[in-house]
Every structure is written in structure tokens, then in C-alpha cells.
């Protein structure tokens, strides 16, 4: 899991924005629209990053339809120390 976290956040082109998304949903769960607005990103970009994060089990979806929000996954919580190390590097 740690290697995946490092790659998804620091090895790829979109890593920085993914980290911003993870930080935002950690602050409080949000849906794609809210994320796009608060991070000043394109809605489609946010959707894409969320898909990558869900696929790698970094964030999870809670609820469905319009009310669905995203929050850090149990696995991400379990490895939160690694995530914090990565966040410190990016700041």
C-alpha cells in the first residue's frame, strides 16, 4: 500500500491535485461538485482523480446519487502516517 500511495501522489502527473483532494475530504466529506468549487478545479478533473483514488482504495464513496460524498478509506486511515509524510513533502 505504501508504494502505491507514493506513486499515486508523487509519481504521476496529477499527484498534487490528488493530494489536495484527499486533504479536502479528510477535513470533511464532500462530493465532486464541492471539491471542484473549493479547490478551483474542473469538475471532470476532480471526477477523474476521484476515480483513480477509489480504484486504489485511497478514498471511498459514501451514499449514492447526488448526496454521495467521498471520504478517506479505512486503508488510507490505516496508513495515515505515510500520507502525512507525503503531505509534508508537498507543502
Amino acid at each position, binding site marked *: 500500500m505504501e508504494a502505491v500511495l*507514493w506513486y499515486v501522489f508523487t*509519481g504521476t502527473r496529477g499527484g*498534487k491535485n490528488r493530494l489536495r483532494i484527499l486533504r479536502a475530504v479528510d477535513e470533511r466529506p464532500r462530493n465532486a461538485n464541492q471539491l471542484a468549487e473549493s479547490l478551483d478545479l474542473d469538475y471532470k478533473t476532480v471526477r477523474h482523480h476521484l476515480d483513480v483514488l477509489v480504484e486504489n482504495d485511497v478514498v471511498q464513496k459514501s451514499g449514492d446519487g447526488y448526496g454521495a460524498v467521498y471520504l478517506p478509506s479505512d486503508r488510507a486511515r490505516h496508513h495515515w502516517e505515510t500520507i502525512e509524510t507525503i503531505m509534508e*513533502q508537498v507543502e
Partner: protein
Amino acid sequence: MSLWFDVARVTAGLNVLLLAVLLSIWGRNYLDLRSKHALGLMVFAVLLLLENLVALYIYLVDPTLSVWFSSAVPDIAWQGMMSLHVLETIGVGFLVWITMD
């Protein structure tokens, strides 16, 4: 001139392009992050890029070796050499795909 030699040269050139893409992304990440992970990826791309540049140099530029490679190396040897370049292209291609994602 062997078809396999052509494939080897073209895929070595393709590897250079793909690795340049990876290096630009990983290099930018390293400048941003300065972490050992970002450094490791960047060093990996640099070395593999050098490997392919050396291959292209000895295939195309070096006055002695390029003549030898284009005239004295039999097909069966090119088939082996070419397979190394093609396998690397596939591997690096996948890395580009997940890195651009």
C-alpha cells in the same frame, strides 16, 4: 539491411521519446518534492534513457560500430537484440500510461 535492425532502431528511438516523457513528469515532481522516491524514479528514467541513447549511438552514429551493425550482424542476432528493445518499449509504455493518468 535487415528488417529486424530497422525494428530495433525504431523501438530504441521510441524508448527515448517515452522515457523523455517520464523524465519530464518525474523530474518536475522531484523539483517539487525533493523526496527520495521522486529522486529514485528520476534516476531510473535518466539511466534507461542513457541506455537507449547509447544503443542509438552505436547503431547509427559511431563510425566503426554503425557500419558493423548495418552490414556484418546476421538476422538471428538482430531478432534477439530487437526483442530486448521491443519488450522495453512495452514496459515503459505501460509506465507512461499510468504516470500520465
